[in-house]
């Protein structure tokens, strides 16, 4: 098994980002080997030295894995943001789909509480999605994004995926809306959140902590 294949086997994360990292590693090893052969080393020894200089697979993979976790969390954060950013416009201001469905909001206390909750919590989650996008990108100027930030992004997404549809279902039940409104909620809220949830699941896998390095572990 080649060095790059072992590195590949040690990594979990977005396919394109992983392929780019591995291609770059392979190019580096080829360049380093060529340079060492040019300096007089036999081909096999040159390759072995190039791989040794590149670093033990577990050490290199740990850094690459963090890069992949951040790439996965960036994608998740954008998907969450895309799922949430239009919601206030769809349901309250602008199009006001709920208003269109039943004319005026029911005057019950349950409805008022659920409506307030979804506005406040949904707003906070929208802010969280913006923060996650920033953290995985330009935020690296101030704080290095790592696996903790990636896990926090995934956790926020999964909370949103559970909480917001349940809250929305409560609102629809309280206002006795018909199946048409339920379908609209399914398409405009639940499905985009499910896409984000799939990405969050991959992010959690990519951001899992690397087991501590053990002495004598195979490279």
């Amino acid at each position, binding site marked *: 098994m080649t060095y790059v294949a072992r590195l590949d086997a040690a990594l979990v994360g977005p396919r394109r980002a992983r392929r*780019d*990292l591995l*291609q*770059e*590693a392979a*190019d*580096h090893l*080829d*360049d*380093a080997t060529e340079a060492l052969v040019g300096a007089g080393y036999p081909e096999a020894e040159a390759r072995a030295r190039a791989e040794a*200089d*590149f*670093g*033990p697979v577990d*050490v*290199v993979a740990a*850094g*690459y894995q*963090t*890069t992949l976790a*951040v790439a996965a969390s*960036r994608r998740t954060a954008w998907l969450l943001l895309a799922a949430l950013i239009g919601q206030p416009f769809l349901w309250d201001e602008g199009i006001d789909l709920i208003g269109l469905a039943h004319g005026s909001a029911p005057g019950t206390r349950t409805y008022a509480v659920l409506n307030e909750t979804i506005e406040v919590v949904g707003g906070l989650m929208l802010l969280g999605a913006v923060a996650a996008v920033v953290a*995985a*990108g*330009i*935020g*690296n*100027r101030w704080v*290095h*994004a790592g696996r903790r930030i990636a896990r926090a992004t995934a956790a926020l997404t999964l909370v949103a995926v559970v909480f917001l549809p349940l809250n929305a279902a409560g609102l629809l039940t309280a206002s006795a809306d018909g199946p048409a409104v339920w379908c609209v909620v399914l398409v405009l809220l639940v499905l985009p959140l499910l896409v984000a949830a799939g990405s969050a699941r991959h992010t959690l896998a990519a951001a899992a902590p690397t087991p501590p390095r053990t002495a004598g572990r195979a490279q």
Partner: protein
Amino acid sequence: MKADALRGHLDALILATLEHSPLHGYAIIEALAARSGGELDLPTGTVYPALRRLESAGYLRSDWSEETGRRRRTYTLSRAGHKQLAAARSEWTTFSRVVGGLLGGIPDAGPGFP
């Protein structure tokens, strides 16, 4: 010199290697080794995550290009990267002047970095 001290400045060192022209990963690492006189002794594979992080931060841009029959990811310093490099240089000059003054015998240690 302790390699750890240099590693703490890895981001600025990388930006400095790209100040005058775009380079691909291997060339960046070669430049780092040459400019540190071989003192920057770290697994070369660990430089690539730092390059990606600097790219995420907007300090670098990267593109795949064809070079001598091989596809290579080439990194270019962005405008924000130039500003960050200037800030790192200024910080280093101040730091080295203060520490040089405190330790004595070094009237003006900067601006030799990076």
